[in-house]
């Protein structure tokens, strides 16, 4: 008896067949998943490149052996602050030999070995953290003239590259979504067209626009949800494999990168796949469903305007 409720003549199983739309939505969700995964990967890499082990900060202290504002030498005071700051992995003062090797080209040109050299501290920060800016006022207080330089030519470039990869991914997702909306609109219009006599009839029997649009939209929403689910499931193995390959590049700690992968353990998957990626795969089906539902509501309501 309950099924009879839907004997309202719309025959949506004919108007919106259940094979075509889910398949197309699945294909597009798959593409969207890949694009989003690319975007998330680019984000992860840029995090590492801008804040990670690749980035070195140098702190130059002119007149290292002069007395500091408080007590002790300037270099000792600076080293004390830098070494104990949270977020600093190592702070290594370059020896005279290292410094001369570094500056050899310039020193040879001037031929003067008695130039007063500043002390240089090479700071490696903990990946994902940028502890130096908040330290600057304190460093300046104990050793005026101290110079902090972030070696950022490469990391800036890589960050820019990552940002443009992310923009491309976003653009790809937008294009896929636009195509998906167009496909849903076309399918809905075709469905409306095949059932136009039944629609005109129930319209003249007093069916509200909201009822007709709701019936079409829940059917399309469901089909799109199923399609989105299919796309997510299809993308999962591919993204797992890619995450595994990318792990050494995007891992935050080096130890994790070399650990062998145990494919039978789902917990290990969760470890190598960025959590953002898993959330994205989970969010994709409802997003597809909602997009289909909204598009169909708008399409049907616009179409019904032809009836008075």
């Amino acid at each position: 008896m309950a099924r009879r409720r839907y004997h309202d003549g719309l025959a949506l199983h004919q108007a919106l067949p259940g094979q075509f739309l889910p398949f197309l939505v699945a294909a597009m969700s798959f593409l969207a998943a890949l694009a989003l995964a690319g975007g998330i990967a680019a984000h992860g890499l840029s995090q590492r490149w801008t804040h990670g082990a690749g980035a070195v900060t140098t702190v130059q202290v002119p007149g290292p052996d002069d007395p500091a504002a408080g007590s002790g030498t300037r270099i000792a005071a600076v080293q004390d602050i830098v070494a104990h700051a949270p977020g600093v992995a190592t702070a290594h003062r370059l020896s005279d030999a290292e410094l001369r090797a570094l500056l050899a080209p310039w020193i040879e040109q001037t031929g003067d070995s008695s130039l007063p050299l500043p002390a240089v501290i090479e700071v490696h920060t903990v990946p994902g953290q940028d502890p130096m800016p908040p330290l600057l006022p304190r460093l300046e207080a104990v050793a005026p003239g101290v110079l902090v330089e972030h070696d950022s030519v490469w990391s800036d470039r890589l960050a820019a590259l990552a940002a443009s990869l992310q923009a491309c991914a976003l653009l790809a997702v937008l294009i896929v979504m636009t195509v998906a909306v167009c496909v849903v609109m076309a399918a809905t219009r075709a469905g409306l067209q095949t059932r136009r006599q039944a629609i005109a009839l129930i319209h003249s029997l007093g069916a509200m626009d909201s009822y007709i649009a709701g019936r079409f939209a829940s059917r399309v929403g469901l089909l799109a949800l199923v399609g989105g689910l299919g796309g997510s499931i299809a993308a999962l193995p591919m993204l797992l494999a890619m995450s595994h390959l990318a792990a050494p590049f995007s891992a935050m700690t080096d130890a994790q990168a070399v650990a062998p992968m145990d494919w039978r353990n789902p917990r290990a998957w969760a470890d190598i796949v960025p959590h953002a990626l898993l959330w994205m795969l989970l969010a994709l089906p409802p997003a597809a469903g909602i997009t289909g539902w909204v598009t169909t509501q708008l399409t049907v309501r616009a179409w019904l305007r032809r009836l008075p």
Partner: protein
Amino acid sequence: MFRLHDVSYAYGGNRAGVAALSHISLDVAQGEFRWLLGPSGAGKSSLLSILSLEVQASAGMVEILGVPVMQARRSNLARLRRRIGTVWQDFRLLPDLSVFDNVALPLRLQHRAEDEIAHEVHAIMKWVGLENRLDARPLQLSGGEQQRVAIARAVIYRPALLLADEPTNALDERQAGRLMAMFHRLAELGTTIVVATHNDAIVEKYPAPAIELAHGHLVRDYR
């Protein structure tokens, strides 16, 4: 009940279109029965489709059951349609639904309970003499049987305004008589009824006030 004032209608828009109705003014009270007469092409079906809210008049004022149709919101028009029953000249049964589902359709759209729907459908189908064809498809029925299904669907939700376009043209004399008896009973109960026909015999047999059209103009309107 319903009022038309200076109503015109043209298919395909006012300027280029075919003028089907010109400057019609009418006032019909609750519980009245009216014939709608005129030769073929006079505009009878067009007038009924304005009253059943299938088309909007191109000009003039239309008021049905106290609702000014030209200014009403879409949702109010939908609600108004639920109080108007129509028997179309071409029946408009849905071929892929059973007879039962066709007749139940208006009640389903009003979200009535299924047992109540079943009760109502059986009662009305018994009255039109088709209670044993509930599972048939419309195209498995004769013309007269289809017409009776269309009539059953139009009256099942007890409309306040009942519009019927040539409702007897496929019926035999006995069934036409039964239908006329039902119309008079419904009118007594307060339903306003307009029946379009060019069957002079039945009009003579069941005399009632008439609205007469010719070439889209009102030529006679008496009570």
